[in-house]
């Protein structure tokens, strides 16, 4: 696919409600490759642009299971197979004593997968992204709300999309260079 001449068009809004409305209208208009930016999480906005489910919970479940099973197997292998020691006549596989470490490893696995899984799903770290080329975008981390429609969207048309964004009552519409 040929690279479009610009990355997309970005509209700036004043309030979370305006952003949500704009996001819903853009989605209804048929735009699918778009993103919204806000200084704090707004649950409805990600739904409005068609991002309904996060895969993070599944990743955490896998991490927790790997940690827990791995933790128990490690103790089993060490205490039963590789280095069996008779302590007070207890069975080599004295599972009640292994619960604590198994539990801690479950938590550790889940937490590591939660953080690194979230970063990976978000494609972070990403030192460069075209949206930062818009000067006003620095306010996305303060008090402004942005909606960006990517030029890669099949329905994107430089003039028509700009007209559409203007119709949403934004503070400003700007071009996002690559």
């Amino acid at each position: 696919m040929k690279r479009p001449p610009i990355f997309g068009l970005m509209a700036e809004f004043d309030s979370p409600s305006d952003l949500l409305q704009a996001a819903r209208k853009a989605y209804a208009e048929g735009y699918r490759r778009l993103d919204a930016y806000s200084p704090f999480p707004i649950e409805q906005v990600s739904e409005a642009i068609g991002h309904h489910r996060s895969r993070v919970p599944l990743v955490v479940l896998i991490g927790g299971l790997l940690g827990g099973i791995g933790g128990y197997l490690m103790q089993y292998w060490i205490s039963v197979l590789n280095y069996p020691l008779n302590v007070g006549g207890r069975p080599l596989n004295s599972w009640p004593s292994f619960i604590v470490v198994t539990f801690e490893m479950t938590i550790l696995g889940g937490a590591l997968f939660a953080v690194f899984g979230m970063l990976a799903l978000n494609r972070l770290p990403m030192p460069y992204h075209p949206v930062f080329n818009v000067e006003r975008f620095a306010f996305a981390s303060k008090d402004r709300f942005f909606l960006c429609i990517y030029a890669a969207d099949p329905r994107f048309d430089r003039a028509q999309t700009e007209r559409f964004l203007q119709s949403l009552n934004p503070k400003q519409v700007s071009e996002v260079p690559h």
Partner: protein
Amino acid sequence: MAEDPTVEASQSGKAPVIAPGYTFATVTDKISAIVLSRRTTLGWVMGFGVGMLLTMLLLVAVSYLFLKGVGIWGINMPIAWGFAIVNFVWWIGIGHAGTLISAILLLLNQPWRNSINRFAEAMTLFAVMCAGMFPILHLGRPWLAYWLFPYPNTMQVWPQFRSPLVWDVFAVSTYFTVSLLFWFVGLIPDLGTLRDRSQSRFARAAYGFLAMGWRGSARHWKNYESAYLLLAGLATPLVVSVHTVVSFDFAISILPGWHTTIFPPYFVAGAIYSGFAMVLVIAIPIRKYYGLGDMITMRHLENSAKVMLTTGLVVAYGYLIEGFMAWYRSDEFDFFMLKNRMLGPYAPLYWLLIFCNIVAPQVLWSRRVRQSVGSLFAVSITVLIGMWLERFIIVITSLHRDFLTSSWGMYYPTKWDWFTYVGTIGFFVMAMYLFIRFLPMISIFEMRTLLPQAEVGAEAK
């Protein structure tokens, strides 16, 4: 956030979570200005300097320890666990309030936590660092500390997983790792804010590097919120488990005064008790000197005081049951342990502990006291001292006179014990000062969600 906290508060007559009149911009500017544009005051330099000097004292104490060995401390046979274990338990307990605030209160949907979770989590991290030093220094040969972890080695030996001391290694290292991750994840959006706000090139690069290109995308927020909530869900059982495992170090043994099933719940309650005391000790000066009374309001201080009062009563119940069980068990050694605590050579410390932990905090029943910043500060310091004495009494009085009269002994801390202890307090102070200077001490993005403007209006639905 379903309801507007400022409105809700004014209706119920309580102090609000955040003073009215703030906007997204002013919240952002107020918190980030402390880091970015406020001049470093003489007070900061002096506070940091004191912490730094005491950290140097810690380095001296530790260097001498490495040269001479643990013999420079007051420990002996039978009291092999002296200050090192007392301080370890005390510090790690202090850390617990941070996780309680950041994780448990998040799950319980208590939005007032948003203005105190960040520095409470930082407090947790630094307290766990201080705690972690002690068992390692106490090893005797601290340079072999990595032997605690199961790793393939040429000696062909492995840790003993039936030992609570090994459980502790896993519990504390997991606790530190998860606390660090939780804290850092919470910081990412605020680091993005600092990156966009900072004027100097260096600060921009540093915060930008740490923010990892965070841009507040709706897709990112969705994954972010999910991960943050799950981390809270994982940290909640973890924080309860950590002090439980610490109490197992004692309870699994057969020593009178240690071998009791009340230990896990009473240790966890005590941890939260001392932790909230430390939260108040940190919050009260911060809100005064940085003018953050609008964000860390009387509501926060009062709630913390209530948590202290509750957990303090659980701790009191623990003491009561300890005494009752020693009598009810009809075991000569248990009963002697109790008598020795109350009337033996360490009795003054025991009664001071009862005063600090049980008697004095009862003033928190009074609303007047809970509304007075000065008295809250005084009570918190008292509780911190009391909780330290509690660990001293548990560790020392149980060890010093056990089953055989011939093996009795006394424990007196040496100056090196004190230097190490005071040194870690200095390290904690220094780390907190650095944190306040270089990172946003209140979570900016979570404060924005507390504002009435953050609510997506009904017209959009």
